[in-house]
């Protein structure tokens, strides 16, 4: 082990590895206790891997295996969204979902799914004819029957881990970004020391919330051996203008790899069509493929024939952390103080609220202090962007709010400065985009990228061309111009 030269600066009660939606929700839950918590994340920002590229559905748990930890945590999180969203300034809408069956044979599966929902404590109902048209006016007329799930919601899942992390940070949790866990030393069946690329930690407990990297982290910490494989999903994002025609989520009958592509209104009114599901080997392969995207569009047109790709703004892909056992959550069998929160493949956003509490309770059960931190906050000071509420007068009160930098997403200079000054500030153009949506609209930065990069460069080290788009090495340019 190459520990020499690395400073030992940290002896936290809890070290969380990974700052995706799971790691940050755990950090937020622990931040209300009077304990010392540190988070290590290999990427330059929180929520940069699976948690930034997902469908943003806050599932209510209706179709999950009853009694499973996944169902318990998703169902326990579902009623809490309105409250947490308002306290953290995260947009959430309970839009509802309709599952469509296109033949009587498919429809024969409806009653079993409805029973499953009942077992999970979720109210759903079978819909046909006029009622189907009423709950899903945008659905294909070829659907013969469906299940209506009123409690399904959509959340701004891009901001969610940022908001979790910011509240944790305000409450004293320390985030070490751009730093990988690489190895550890064990003694008496416990993790004693954790080495990252920059420092050593001697934590009392370690939580492995490393998503796609959780198998490597577990192995490095002397924990259980399992493997995580990437399951890619691709989407097409459609304009808000098309979103007016998509009041709720549409999905088809589940297949071997899940529900298949869906038509999903996003929290702020645009529409995602996708994702598909394809098992890959390369954990970094987030590329989109022409064939995959065409397939997604074709399959979503079965659900909603009116889908028009002239409204397409962007295509992208995400990787689900698939493991042979989903929700590997619990104490390691080989390293006593290592708690796994891994293999959270398809519902990590939906379960995140209860997941933080669940992990906190397991830690408290193992001896972590449950004394509350009297000074801990429950909410964030955050000014929402204009698109969140359309309140022009509010935005105009701040002089910087009168300068709209990104005209497509109506992002003002005030929003961009806020993103760069938040408790856990953006440190790249991509970080600003994630926090504000600037450059993410119809023109994809055509009109605003130079303005956004200019403001970002005021806060980042180096020359203008060195302003990072995202990870180290992702410079805006390749150098300074020469010549006339």
């Amino acid at each position: 082990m190459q520990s020499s030269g690395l400073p030992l600066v940290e002896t936290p009660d809890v070290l969380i590895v990974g700052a995706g939606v799971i790691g940050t929700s755990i950090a937020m839950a622990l931040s209300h206790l009077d304990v010392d918590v540190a988070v290590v994340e290999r990427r330059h920002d929180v929520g940069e891997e699976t948690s930034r590229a997902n469908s943003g559905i806050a599932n209510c748990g209706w179709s999950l295996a009853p009694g499973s930890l996944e169902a318990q945590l998703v169902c326990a999180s579902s009623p809490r969204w309105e409250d947490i969203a308002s306290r953290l300034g995260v947009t959430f809408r309970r839009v509802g979902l309709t599952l469509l069956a296109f033949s009587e044979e498919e429809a024969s599966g409806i009653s079993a799914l409805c029973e499953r929902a009942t077992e999970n404590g979720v109210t759903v109902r079978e819909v046909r004819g006029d009622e189907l048209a009423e709950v899903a006016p945008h659905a294909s007329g070829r659907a013969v029957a469906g299940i209506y799930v009123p409690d399904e919601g959509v959340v701004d899942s891009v901001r969610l881990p940022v908001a979790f992390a910011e509240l944790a940070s305000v409450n004293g949790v320390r985030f070490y970004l751009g730093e990988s866990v690489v190895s550890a030393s064990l003694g008496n069946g416990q993790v004693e020391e954790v080495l990252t690329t920059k420092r050593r930690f001697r934590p009392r407990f370690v939580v492995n919330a490393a998503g796609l990297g959780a198998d490597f982290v577990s192995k490095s910490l002397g924990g259980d051996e399992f493997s995580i494989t990437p399951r890619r999903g691709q989407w097409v994002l459609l304009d808000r203008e098309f979103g007016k025609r998509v009041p709720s989520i549409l999905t088809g009958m589940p297949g071997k790899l899940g529900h298949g592509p869906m038509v999903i209104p996003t929290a702020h009114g645009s529409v995602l069509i996708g994702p598909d599901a394809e098992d890959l080997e390369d954990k970094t392969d987030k590329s989109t493929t022409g064939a995959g995207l065409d397939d997604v569009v074709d399959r979503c047109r079965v659900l909603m024939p009116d889908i028009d790709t002239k409204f397409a703004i962007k295509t992208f892909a995400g990787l689900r952390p698939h493991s042979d056992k989903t929700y590997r959550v619990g104490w390691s069998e080989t390293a006593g103080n290592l708690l796994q929160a891994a293999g959270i493949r398809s519902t990590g956003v939906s379960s995140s609220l209860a997941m933080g509490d669940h992990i906190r309770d397991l830690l408290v059960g193992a001896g972590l202090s449950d004394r509350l931190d009297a000074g801990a906050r429950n909410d964030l000071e955050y000014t929402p962007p204009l698109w969140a509420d359309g309140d022009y007068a509010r935005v105009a009160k701040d002089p910087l709010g009168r300068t709209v930098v990104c005209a497509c997403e109506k992002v003002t200079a005030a929003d961009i400065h806020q993103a760069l000054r938040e408790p856990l500030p953006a440190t790249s153009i991509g970080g600003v985009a994630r926090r504000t949506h600037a450059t993410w609209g119809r023109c994809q930065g055509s009109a605003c990228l130079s303005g956004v990069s200019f403001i970002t460069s005021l806060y980042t080290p180096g020359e203008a061309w060195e302003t990072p788009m995202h990870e180290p090495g992702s410079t805006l340019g390749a150098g300074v111009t020469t010549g006339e």
Partner: protein
Amino acid sequence: MLAERGIGVTLVERLPAPGGQEPETDAAQLARAASRAGVRMMLGTLAAEFRQGQVHTLGVEGAVTLSADALVVATGSRPQTRAELGIAGERGAGVMPGSATRHLLDSGVLLGRHPLVIGDGHLAEELCSALGSAGAITVTSVRAGSDGVDPWPGTNTFTDARVLSVHGFPRVNRAVVSQGDRLTHVHADAVILAASRVAMRNIEGAVFGGPHVVECFSLAEPKTFDNAEAAAMQACEQTMLTLR
């Protein structure tokens, strides 16, 4: 033109001066003529939304709501986005909208030493030349146009071609160019999107037209004053019809 016909006109412009992102030489003269004809100018102001005859604006004067019988949208053009061009692959840095490239070059940022520029029109041509003089070592131009077009000076040109995908992370380093059945892997550390101009639409409620919305986009190549004036005249006639 509308004011001269006795219509009450307010001109809302996002930038602090009239003339657009790439000010035309006669912009100032036209703006003076418009003011003389009685046009109210709201500069440094974004028209954000148009609903039920109300235009919500945000700008130096704060949040101002205007009532309008017709909205003329003359918000200019932009090159096609990556999604519109159907470019698959990784999302490394260095894939840039052509219009942003121009501004960044003006501020001294060299986008790539081996940039690849997609597009056939004036913007693509200008960027190829500007990148070459700003310090790029090789400039590749990928044009959808057919054989026989003259390659722009100093560029390694693919005609009848399109970029299928881009690769490389954290920065792009390669693009796959197709010409019929032939695929070529081109080394590129920046991919500049400067293909065919499309309308810049960003006013909520009027993004894809609608009643009382008159579109005034001049998208023809080359970009000339005559083409712009023709589009304006047509929009003026349409506005008069809408107001009737």
